[in-house]
């Protein structure tokens, strides 16, 4: 078990290193000069050159990579070209929006989807099952940014109940901040919930078809008892995996919905930083997101291994 775990951790680290090389190399070839962008149309050539020097662009590539990597290891993500503040501070500010958003929508989708999934599985083939799965089928097909637009139209433009976007900041009160996260989290939660409901249902049906469940039923246990005491526990493992994946997706993949609601989250930070050629910010955020995915995958792998010891020797 221990050697399996350390092997997985080692692979995770190698993947992260490879990712750091890719990120750095890719951004190196992005066209556009940040110094020129900061100074604008009327800037003279020597002003641009002076700024380039200030930002350290004339150092060799390899030197800059290792400098960056060394900084990462000590928690120093460098300084944003455009905002001239430490990148880590920017990331912290944005995580304060992205993380609650991801958690709220995850909670929302889980709370809605799992009961529906269980319900549908327990009444397999019924009208309720068919219609729930039909709705889930449609939910998967809805682009979240379009759903977001519709929500804005109904709740912000027509009913004027909730803000159409923006974020006042946690320091200006809990309620206004939560209020501005409601529509985005609902928009993000819908497709996630649809997927989750379907996974819950099919995973539960799989388990219900297994021999030991049939045995339990044959022993005379009630359908309800079998469902909740035996089947559900086993069926939830794949569901938890999906939730883990959805979490890392939500943390990074909210970029479009953040744009609809102009939320100052991580996704928009990267988007903005790319257009402003604030490459050091892009590098910092992307490496953190990649690290999150790797860590979540690692945890999922390890939890599988705990459940299924056969995996220790394989792979």
């Amino acid at each position, binding site marked *: 078990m221990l050697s399996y775990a350390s092997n997985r951790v080692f692979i995770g680290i190698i993947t992260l290193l490879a990712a750091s090389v890719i990120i750095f190399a890719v951004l190196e070839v992005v066209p556009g000069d940040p110094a020129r962008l900061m100074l604008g149309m009327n800037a003279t050539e020597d002003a641009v050159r002076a700024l380039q020097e200030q930002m350290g662009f004339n150092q060799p590539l390899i030197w800059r990579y290792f400098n960056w990597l060394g900084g990462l290891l000590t928690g120093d993500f460098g300084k944003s070209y455009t905002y001239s503040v430490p990148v880590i501070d920017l990331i912290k500010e944005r995580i304060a929006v992205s993380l609650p958003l991801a958690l709220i929508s995850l909670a929302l989708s889980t709370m809605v989807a799992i009961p529906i999934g269980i319900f549908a599985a327990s009444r397999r083939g019924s009208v309720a099952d068919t219609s729930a799965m039909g709705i889930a089928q449609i939910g998967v097909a809805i682009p979240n940014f379009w759903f977001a637009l519709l929500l804005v139209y109904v709740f912000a433009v027509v009913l004027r109940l909730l803000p159409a976007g*923006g974020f006042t900041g946690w320091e200006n009160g809990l309620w206004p901040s939560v209020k501005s996260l409601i529509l985005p989290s609902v928009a993000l939660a819908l497709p996630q919930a649809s997927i989750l409901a379907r996974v819950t249902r099919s995973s539960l049906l799989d388990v219900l078809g297994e021999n030991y469940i049939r045995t339990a039923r044959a022993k005379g246990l009630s359908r309800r008892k079998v469902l909740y005491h035996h089947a559900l526990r086993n069926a939830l493992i794949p569901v938890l995996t999906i939730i883990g994946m959805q979490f890392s997706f939500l943390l990074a993949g909210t970029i479009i919905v953040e744009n609809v609601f102009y939320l100052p989250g991580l996704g928009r930070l990267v988007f*903005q930083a790319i257009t*402003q050629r604030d490459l050091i910010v892009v590098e910092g955020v992307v490496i953190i997101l990649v690290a999150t995915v790797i860590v979540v995958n690692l945890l999922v792998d390890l939890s599988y291994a705990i459940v299924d010891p056969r995996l220790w020797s394989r792979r």
Partner: protein
Amino acid sequence: MNIWKVFLFGTAIALLPSATSFAAKTDLVLGIVLEPPHLDPTAGAAAAIDEIVYANIFEGLTRIGPKGDVLPALAESWTKSDDGKVYTFKLHKDVKFHDGTTFDAGDVKFSLDRARNEKSTNAQKGLFAAIDTVESVDPLTVKVTLRQPSGDFLYNMAWGDAVIVAPESADTNKDKPVGTGPFKLENWAKGSQIVIAKNPDYWGSPAQLNKATFRIIPDPAAATAALLAGDVQAFPVFPSYETIAQFQADPRFKVVIGTTEGETVMGMNNKKPPFDNVKVRQAIAHAIDRKTVIDGAMFGFGTPIGSFFPPHHPAYLDLTAETAYDSALAKKLLTEAGYPEGFKTTLKLPPPTYARRGGEIIAAQLRDIGIEAEIIPVEWAQWLDQVFKNKNYDMTIVSHTEPNDLNIFARDDYYFNYDSPPFKAMIKEIEAISDGPERTELYRQAQKLLAADEPAVFLFQLPKTGVWDAKIEGLWENGPIQANDLTAVKWTD
């Protein structure tokens, strides 16, 4: 269904009254479209910097007033020598920077020398080009000697790029701006908002507001919703032209359509065939219907221009008739130029709505005379790199928002690749003389020359579309420079 419960729960809470007091309001939330990269106006060209700091946080020797005139600021008064080369500024006394340090002539010398320095990253170094020496005569007197007389000197000193900074804080102004203005920076939540608060120790007449918040709302739809919901009470440059009519009809709001210095043009690469042929450029100008462009891209907001000059300027000439929309004439000119079948070309469009939407309409209009313009959207970084710096483009649309910028057509190596010795001579003459009938006449000649030569298609003057709560007064109607001067802004009840 559970999801509806969540909805109902959410809306129920949303309906609870929020804790706002209705006592005389002294705070204001303004919407801005672009977040400034940093807050040091002496180290970046972004107009978004001036939109926050100009006249609020930083001040210069002179300043530009709401009507575009030059007013005294940190300099109480000044005198000009007879040869027009020496300016002596008398400074206000008892002026303090936000960090408590005293403002004096030394700071002026420091700021101007710093901006002119070889290592300076000031984006508008050209403003200081005429300066030969800066001397601090005594703590409240500064003498500036010019290389040659400059009619624009006092105006140039009023730009955001020429504000006075202190040596102690100059290097950290990007993040912690320390100026002499009536407001201080309180807090900047990156990507979200910038809060400035009243400076109680201000030397001049104090601000009426205690606090002003600039909320960054890049999306036009969100801007509309934020105003309607009252999250934002003023949008000095409202980005959503399509919804202005809605605000005009709503008594809660005041809509003020003012002028800006933004001449929106479709630049052409004058050295690259076929645009090196003046007939081709004229044909393109005649093929474009400015009214349709303004209606379609700007929902009717914008004044057509026929040359590179703002319509609200006293020396303005309406030359739109010179290049009136005339498809047949355009076709004829194109044939004379040797392109009876038209040609293929490209149109690079930066992100603003006027460019992206306007470009789509113009491409459709050019198609009518046989010119196939492929639309290539670019971000600002790419635009600056490809179009502005390397001149790797055929046509592009951009609004030139700097005031007093007729001279860009006289610059060597500017992205138009336009080279006209007579125009250059005119600009040289204009820059040497001060305002007066003589200068007006020269301005008019220069406008005519550009309208005839058509180095770019002059489309329209960008409007300043201000929308704010009807109870607010003191916001600028026009945009002689890109600034949100809040010194006189207050709530009327």
